[in-house]
């Protein structure tokens, strides 16, 4: 929903409204959506990281094994 539909009318109003972003009045919902995104990302990446590290740990590589994996492009 457009907050501004005509710039001339908006800027000549008796009191110019400063907020011009879309859906003024729904800030709480947008912030909640942002928080949900952040929490989802945190949980999802933490789970993925743990799984990956468990897989790696099961292979029991030695401390210097990585040296044979350095690419020479």
């Amino acid at each position, binding site marked *: *929903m*457009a*907050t*501004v*539909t*005509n*710039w*001339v009318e908006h*800027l*000549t109003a008796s009191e*110019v409204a400063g907020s*011009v*972003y*879309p*859906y003024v009045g729904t*800030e709480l919902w*947008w*912030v909640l*959506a*942002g928080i949900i*995104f*952040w929490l989802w*990302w945190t949980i*999802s*990446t933490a789970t*993925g*990281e743990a799984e*990956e590290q468990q897989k790696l740990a099961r292979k029991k590589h030695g401390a210097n094994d990585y040296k044979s994996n350095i690419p*020479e*492009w």
Partner: protein
Amino acid sequence: MDNELTALTTIFTEFYYWMTVVLMFLIHVGFCMYEVGASRYKHHQHTLMKNTLLIPLVTITWFFFGWWIYWAFPTGPGISASIMTESTGLILGGGFGANELANPTNALMAINLNDHIMGVFWAAFLLFSWTAASIVSGAVIERITTFAFGIMAIAIGSVFWTIDAAWGWHFDGWMVRELGYHDAYASGVIHAICGGFALGILAVLGPRIGKFSSSGEPRNIGPRNPWLVCVGLFLIYTGFWGFYAACNIPIFDLGPEYGMEGTTFFTATNIYVTPTTLSGITMNFLLSLAGGLLMGYWVSKGDPFWTYSGGLAGIITSSAGNDLYHPMQALLIAAVGTWCAYKLHYFVERRFKIDDAVGAVAVHGYAGVVGLVICGFVLWGYPSSGYDGYAAINPIGMIVGAVIMFGLLGFLPGWILAKILHSAGKLRIPRDVELAGLDYNIMEQARKDERAVASTNR
């Protein structure tokens, strides 16, 4: 300048654009580091030189005709009447005519004590042009000839992007007036067009040797130095601050501009001369970056190249509407665009055997297109301009705009030019040179020099 306030405003504006040029220079430093890091050792020097040479090539052609095109083509020509000349023809004269502002033979295109803005504004746009050519440069590394890339750099940097800027990134552009096209920080006019142009070239150029197995499975090649790639991308972020600032007019009184009698309203504006604030876009820039980085990390499972590229893709996706979005909208839009760019990159690579060496088509092209489409929905109904007679921002206009940017002015010219150069045998380096490495002779000579010096020292 006959009073202190006018002088202060003028010289502030002059210095503001000058600073944007300095900051945007870092974009090119970043691109050079990024490409050298992504290329293999045997191609390093040619890769660096290819990207470096676009600087002088685009600069001189931008002086000769690129800037002129921007001021002459807002009407199409022949599509929509200019609000300045009320004609649909090329804008060649009058107060804002190309002849007066951007004709390289005009006295204004030099040091002129009556004009403090033209040169820095010309330079800010030139740095956009370098960026345009540099976006294409990364995708085609290790197999395009320097000659062919020079032609392509001039085509995208001084011709096609400036046409799209005249159409959709100009207060008098026909796409703004007729379609309600809105692209404040260039999701389409820089990024989508360059992604499309790169894809057009790649479709003809073909993949690097060894990129696909005999059964068509894609393989990863490099990067030689992932950390140089990451620092390069970090520098591109840094330069992007200058890019965002350069897309604004820092101080403008909209009262007389919009014909509002008795009203004074000083503000920063975007390129369409509609109001925004540098403060607000700073928040949106950072939240876009955050959304892209988070999604890039997640979707690529922690790959540093795609995490950094995700940050860039996030900014690019939100850029079309970042003059108006709420910061949380910028965050979420950036995340969506980054996810789409990553998925589309691998889909196109597998399905069409396209070898985009640095993901430029995805990060710039697909993210730019997604950003334009989302902007059409989120800003639906907003005025595209403060002047009378302009269409409001709407989804159809933005989708048509995305097709024009990515397809008509991006992919098509890139594909046609590549076909012409390919048929002339000038597009791709010989297979044996690609295998040996573009720098083979340089490295061989360096090795001889090293041995000669070592034997002298014994």
